[in-house]
């Protein structure tokens, strides 16, 4: 036994009858399923599979094998041109560390997926054109366009992939991080290793940190970087969307509060993104519509603007958003949906932005009006953020679904906490199933205060992924909970290869670890199969709540036990030992318990058998 328990108070095993509603130990009984009166809910139609695990899987680099980096974020994807496999997935690493083989900074990992006969996925062996052979490959930045840092979001279009770097770097000292980040802080010479693709730019020497924060195109098949988009400006990019005309690109910045840009690029020729015009969005005063202001963007002649576009933007009254996160086009309505995370008290930031010459979007003003404050007031709050919708037809940007509902700290107790709560949307994607369109929203909580998490007297955060049926009203009530990521982790990344039945999602930096489960101790990319079945059954879900009596579901279960109403309950293992107690709640988290047969006991003494199965 572990030594630290030596001087603790020995647990009393038996206590007399009147003391408690849930004895420490009960006499185990074998419960015959048909005597329980329980309603058996079929196991979830979803199948779960770990695909790519940080710090466990190894990647092939030009200098040999290396242990994969962690902090998985965006997942880019490209089809297999030969059609022999599902295609290529490329995972961002949102971190900065020094690494001799992979390269300093962040980076990406590429792998090719196949589908086995049973419908599950497998990572295929490959040999790349540069001779590397194996399953996972780092994307080569260091020998091509120069390293990247904190690779967060990105853009995938027509089998091409770009990576984005959100954390805006402003000094070499910052990126060096005492030698633990970018060790080489000498000036970077553009085009020295690989031509930049921009006339007159090659040979230019820039500060090392100035080579970060560009959108970077990579070659997903050969796992190497192709080009930094020096003509799109240097921003804290989070993601982008390329339109079906193969010319227009919209880009979203997760930058400073009140100074984050919405950008449009229009290529001269379809598919060639090295030449074209760049625009920043400026909303019309008092309206949701706006205009695009052209930005001089030839990198060789307008370098000063490209390397510091915000300094230029503020002189033109460009609209600054709070912090734009990911955007995705809904193929059904042609509109682009963009997440905008919250900021607890942004008033002072808005004030500073306005003073510098930025304009602020109408939905932000409308929120202030609704709160009865001015936009620059220190009382203005925006804890939860929202999903915005941008309509390319009239260039309007407005709120689509607001995070919330508003919960004060004082009301964030378990018994008052809303059943569904959306905070700090970050990742976004769409599923098209059986003629219906669903939006997937992934959270990245900015904190636990102001009702972002219920106050349980315990610590820790869970981020959730939600589904929204786009044919329904965009309300919190109409959200459907798709997944909850482990304690402390962020749920992020969303890529689908087969029209939405199989999706890849990342769990970034989980907090708790169990010995045997890679999924709980590392950043990882996992696959969920069977989404079409799930989505088809969502509509029926609401009907089941009105039944009398408390039902326990799902059963068997793997991560949590749900109850049809809020109650007190205890869980006992097969030996009769109490292992979990829950009060006035409708969910019990059992993600740490071993597989096996357990008993749920209610305050009236009745019990139900539950099977935990992984």
């Amino acid at each position, binding site marked *: 036994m572990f030594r630290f328990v030596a001087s603790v108070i020995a647990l009393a095993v038996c*206590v007399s009858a009147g003391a408690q*509603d849930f004895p420490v130990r009960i006499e185990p*009984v074998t419960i015959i399923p048909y005597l329980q009166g329980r309603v058996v809910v079929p196991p979830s139609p979803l199948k779960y599979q770990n695909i790519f695990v940080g*710090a466990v899987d190894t990647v092939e680099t030009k200098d040999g094998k290396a242990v994969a980096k962690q902090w998985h974020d965006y997942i880019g994807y490209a089809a297999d041109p030969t059609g022999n496999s599902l295609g290529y997935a490329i995972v961002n690493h949102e971190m900065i560390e020094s690494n001799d083989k992979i390269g300093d900074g962040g980076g990406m990992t590429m792998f090719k997926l196949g589908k086995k006969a049973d419908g599950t996925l497998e990572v295929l062996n490959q040999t790349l054109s540069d001779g590397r052979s194996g399953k996972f490959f780092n994307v080569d930045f260091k020998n091509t366009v120069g390293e990247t840092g904190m690779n967060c979001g990105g853009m995938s279009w027509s089998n091409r992939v770009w990576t984005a770097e959100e954390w805006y770097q402003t000094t070499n000292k910052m990126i060096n991080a*005492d030698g633990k980040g970018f060790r080489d802080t000498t000036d970077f010479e553009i085009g020295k290793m690989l031509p930049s693709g921009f006339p007159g730019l090659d040979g230019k020497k820039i500060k090392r940190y100035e080579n970060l924060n560009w959108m970077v195109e990579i070659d997903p098949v050969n796992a190497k970087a192709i080009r930094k988009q020096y003509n799109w400006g240097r921003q804290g990019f989070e993601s982008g969307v390329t339109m079906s005309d193969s010319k227009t690109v919209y880009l979203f910045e997760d930058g400073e509060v009140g100074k984050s840009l919405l950008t449009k690029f229009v290529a001269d020729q379809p598919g060639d993104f090295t030449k074209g015009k760049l625009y920043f969005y400026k909303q019309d005063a008092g309206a949701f519509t706006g205009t695009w202001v052209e930005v001089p963007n030839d990198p060789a002649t307008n370098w000063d603007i490209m390397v510091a576009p915000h300094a230029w933007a503020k002189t033109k009254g460009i609209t600054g958003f709070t912090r734009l996160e990911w955007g995705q086009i809904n193929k059904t309505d042609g509109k682009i949906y963009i997440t905008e995370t919250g900021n607890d008290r942004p008033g002072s930031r808005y004030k500073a932005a306005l003073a510098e010459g930025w304009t602020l979007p109408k939905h932000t003003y409308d929120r202030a009006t609704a709160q009865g404050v001015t936009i620059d007031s220190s009382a203005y709050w925006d804890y939860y953020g929202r999903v915005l919708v941008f309509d390319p037809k009239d260039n309007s940007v407005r709120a689509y679904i607001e995070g919330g509902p508003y919960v004060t700290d004082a009301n964030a107790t378990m018994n008052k906490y809303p059943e569904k709560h959306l905070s700090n949307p970050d990742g976004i994607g769409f599923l098209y199933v059986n003629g219906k369109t669903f939006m997937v929203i992934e959270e990245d909580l900015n904190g636990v205060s102001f009702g972002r998490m219920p106050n349980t*007297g315990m610590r820790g955060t869970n981020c959730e992924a939600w589904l929204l049926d786009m044919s329904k009203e965009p309300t919190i009530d109409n959200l459907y909970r798709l997944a909850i990521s482990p304690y402390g982790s962020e749920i992020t990344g969303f890529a689908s290869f087969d029209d939405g039945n199989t999706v890849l999602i990342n769990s970034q930096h989980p907090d708790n*670890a169990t010995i045997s489960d890679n999924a709980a101790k590392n950043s990882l990319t996992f696959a969920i199969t069977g989404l079409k079945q799930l989505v088809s059954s969502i509509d029926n879900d609401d009907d089941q709540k009105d039944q009398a009596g408390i039902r326990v579901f799902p059963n068997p279960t793997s991560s949590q036990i749900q109850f049809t109403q809020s109650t007190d309950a205890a869980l006992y293992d097969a030996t009769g030992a109490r292992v979990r107690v829950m009060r006035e709640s409708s969910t019990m988290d059992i993600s740490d318990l071993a597989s096996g047969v357990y008993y749920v006991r209610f305050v009236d003494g009745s019990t139900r058998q539950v099977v935990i199965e992984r």
Partner: protein
Amino acid sequence: MRNQYLFGLLILLLVGHDGHKASTDRRQQLRSVISSIARHSDSLVTNNVRKAVASIQSGNTQDALRHYEGIRQAYKAIEPLIEHIDPSMVTMQLNGAPLPKLDAKSQFVDVLEPHGLQVIDEMFGADQDSVIANGDELTKELLQFSVNMHSAAALISNTPWTDRLVLESCRTGIMRLTTMGISSFDRPATEPFLSENLAIMRTIRMLVICYRDVCQQNDLAALYEQALTLIDGTGPYFGQSDGALDKAELIRTILDPLYGSIARLQIGLGIELSTEVSPSQPVVNPTAESMFSSSTLMPTASSGIHYNSISNDLLDLGKVLFFDPILSDNAERACASCHQPERAFTDGLAKGLAFDHQGTILRNTPTLINSVYARRFFFDLRAQRISDVVAHVITDQQEFHSSLIDVVGRIRASSEYVEMFERVFGRRGAESIDATNISMAIGAYLTTLVSMNSRMDRYLRGESVTISASERRGFNLFMGKAACASCHFPPTYAGYVPPTFVESESEIIGVPARHDTVNALEDSDVGRAGGILRENSVIYRGSFKTPTVRNIALTAPYFHNGSYESLEQVMDFYVRGGGAGIGLHVPYQTLPFDRLELTRQDQDDIIAFMKALTDTSLKVNPPARLPSIGSSKTDRRPIGGRY
């Protein structure tokens, strides 16, 4: 079979029903008691703030101070409750340290200014003229406190209190009182009035009384009476002045036994524990008998390993890895090379020896004993998990000079190691060895390097040992006038913040580059500002993790750069007012700039107390041998490394 089942069910039904009714009634009673405490405190604060503001406006600082004491007393009545259910509300709004912090989620460096009683205390602590001159600021803070207190009271009233939450709150309250309430922490600037702590005891008493009947029914009446007697025994102690109070005696005879008796009550009544309600790991052990013991805190919380997963095989593996130089590029350096068990896991050097004898690494080697209680690691707090620490040491060019892939490869070459990893992580052959599992095993081993068994601990937890008069005075000075405990919090005497221990602090004290107070030279090490990107702020420039004072007699030299050789030199540095006091420019120093008024005798007493924190009870036996790798050269590698 069927009869057996029905019989079992019948018994369950009978047992359950009686217990349920009593516990539901008690829950209602507790909620109404708590709600009335919260409402009462809230209105007392509102009234006293109104009066204090009026007094400030009319220039009567004496009256304002009197109302400030009223505000404090009212707050103290809810302190055990709010500290337990929402410690972040306490830190940011009600009673946190008066130091700026950073917004953890912002990629830009956003400084959050503190609010609450300690900020107010610093304003009141200034001389009378400045209290009036800063009247507007003070008024603003007081009104803000009134608003915050209102939401705290609402949160407390709305919380669905259960037996577990109530009894664990009482323990949190006692821990807070012992480690911060009776130290200099709460009152950075004004004279302490110990009587305000009676408000805490009153609240705990009102809650414990709710258990009278159920204790009697369960033969726990003696335990119940003991708890009440201890609570009432605090009266005479809190009637004294701060200088006169013997804090060691108060803890030994009252607070620590009370802490244990409430846990006994909770366990005796079969009430669930914080370890039973969620997979998330509590930091404070709900069954610990004492606040000063090796089992007070759960060592696994920051290791990332669930306590259910710790096995002897895992610990054995971790220990072998800790002593095995195979982790380093030249197979000559192990964790134990610098963290030497016989020196309390330090190396006795100013700065650690670098790889290949090429000079030194950046900073002093810290002790590993009780290091797992930290939530952030390294002097610059760069790492949040032990796995990050292991990865850092392996890949740092000056430390193990290796890479994760190479280390994994070297260890996989050993069939003996493969067998050991398989035993813990599953039969997957060499695949069971990966970077995560290596660091997890080492992290698990570190959770065994915990010990709170110094003579001082044993005295405070009531064992029959003695402390000298000098050590006793030293403890009381450490906890009071000398303000050491404001940063070196008991029971770890490090910057691990009670009562929840979910935060590790760093401080700017202005340690010079070398021990020279006359020609003090600034240290170029930026500390925490160079740790992680988002903490690159002036408020962390020169800020270093607050290390433990435990075993300090064994861990010279001192400070992040090892520039001070003796405890006398260290005391002298603090008495002079830190870096700012010896002429360095330290604008964000978190140590008071003014000299500490400590006599020579005071300093000797504090040193005597710190020496009483020496604890050599932790016996570490290095592994008898290291696993064979297969090549005769590597198999001759020494246990614990060559240098």
